[in-house]
């Protein structure tokens, strides 16, 4: 999607009501981000929007890209945000051989996930849960955070559905290399073992990554 260098419109400040609704939809899409939401979107600072080609908007806070959205679709985190909060997003992992294709913008195919180096979700694993802040007394309990996460080997503890955004990790690397929207559920992917899994995403070194947001 962002293979070429992008030209963005100047930044626009967003209304606080829009900011609120974005915050809400961000939390519904990524419940695991709940403990960090005040760090991601500090209440005081104002969110800015940059319009990119193909009706994509990128949301920026204090020069830091946070996430992008195509049309009115799913909110997808920018990789810099993923690098800051790696535990807050569902992940899959690709094997080493697939990295160079993903980093040149190819469609992610199933064999890169089903091979030995790849990791697809496994409902039977026990996730390593991230520590949560205890709810303060007298305070209403916010939306519940689901008990899901990745186990030590990188298997996510829940099967992911088609259309869900997912972060792509890589074998032997600590940081994520791409994000995108699944075009095939992970269960189907395991059964079929071939075909595209993530079509157009955002990867390290693409136009969105290189876009200057300062």
């Amino acid at each position, binding site marked *: 999607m962002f293979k070429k260098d992008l030209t963005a419109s100047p930044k626009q400040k967003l209304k606080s009501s829009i900011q609120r609704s974005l915050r809400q939809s961000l939390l519904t899409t990524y419940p695991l981000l709940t403990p*960090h939401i005040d*760090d*991601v979107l500090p209440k005081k600072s104002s969110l800015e929007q940059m319009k990119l080609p193909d009706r994509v908007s990128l949301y920026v806070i204090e020069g830091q890209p946070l996430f992008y959205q195509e049309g009115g679709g799913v909110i997808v985190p920018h990789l*810099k945000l993923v*690098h*800051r*909060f*790696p535990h807050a997003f569902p992940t899959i992992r690709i*094997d*080493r*051989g697939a*990295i*160079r294709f993903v*980093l040149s913008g190819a469609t992610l195919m199933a064999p890169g996930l089903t091979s*030995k*180096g790849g990791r697809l979700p496994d409902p039977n694993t026990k996730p390593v849960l991230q520590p949560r802040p205890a709810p303060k007394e007298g305070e209403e309990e916010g939306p519940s955070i689901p008990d899901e996460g990745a186990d030590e080997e990188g298997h996510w503890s829940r099967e992911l559905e088609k259309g869900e955004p997912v972060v792509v990790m890589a*074998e*032997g*690397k*600590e*940081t994520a*290399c791409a994000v995108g929207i699944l075009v095939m559920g992970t269960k189907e992917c395991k059964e079929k073992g071939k075909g595209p899994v993530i079509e157009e995403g955002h990867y*390290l*070194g693409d136009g969105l*990554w*290189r876009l200057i947001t300062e």
Partner: protein
Amino acid sequence: MADPAFGRQVAYCGVCTLPPEYCEYGGTVKKCQEWLQKSHPDMYARIWSPEALEAATASLSVEAQERAAKDAKKKAAKAEAAEQKQADKLANSVVTIKRIERNKRKFVTAVSGLEAFGLDLKKVAKDFGKKFATGSSVTKVPSGGEEIVVQGDVSDEIEEFLLEKYKDIPEDNIELVDDKKSKKAAAAAG
């Protein structure tokens, strides 16, 4: 440890902007290695140690390794060529400062060719206006492209200002042109 409120901090390579782990796919591996060695020696030792490299290649078949190597080579060559081209372009591009006679004693100064040096014309125009306290605007030229038009004859000052402020413009690449509206030419055209 990093400030918890900011999440995890990831260092990015100063050459290819990727996290250093991914430098090997960026096409500028050599430069990235040098940069990492200089600025994050500990990370360099971890990522580019012989053991780590061996682990990286062991899982691939020989054939795949060869293919990957070839691919990397091609990418590096491409990046180098692009860089060369960019440098060439920089060396060849000329900033033209043109003094245009508007009326007998009145002039405007047109500056073209700045965009080749990666400058934002709108911002530069604003700077000119501030510096010389005159009107300064970006206008389209008929041949396509844009130039900055500054009111008044400030051609020499602009040259100095450019050299001082934007160091990557070489002095030899600035050209001063005097464009007098000669009556004869105008008559011939008419």
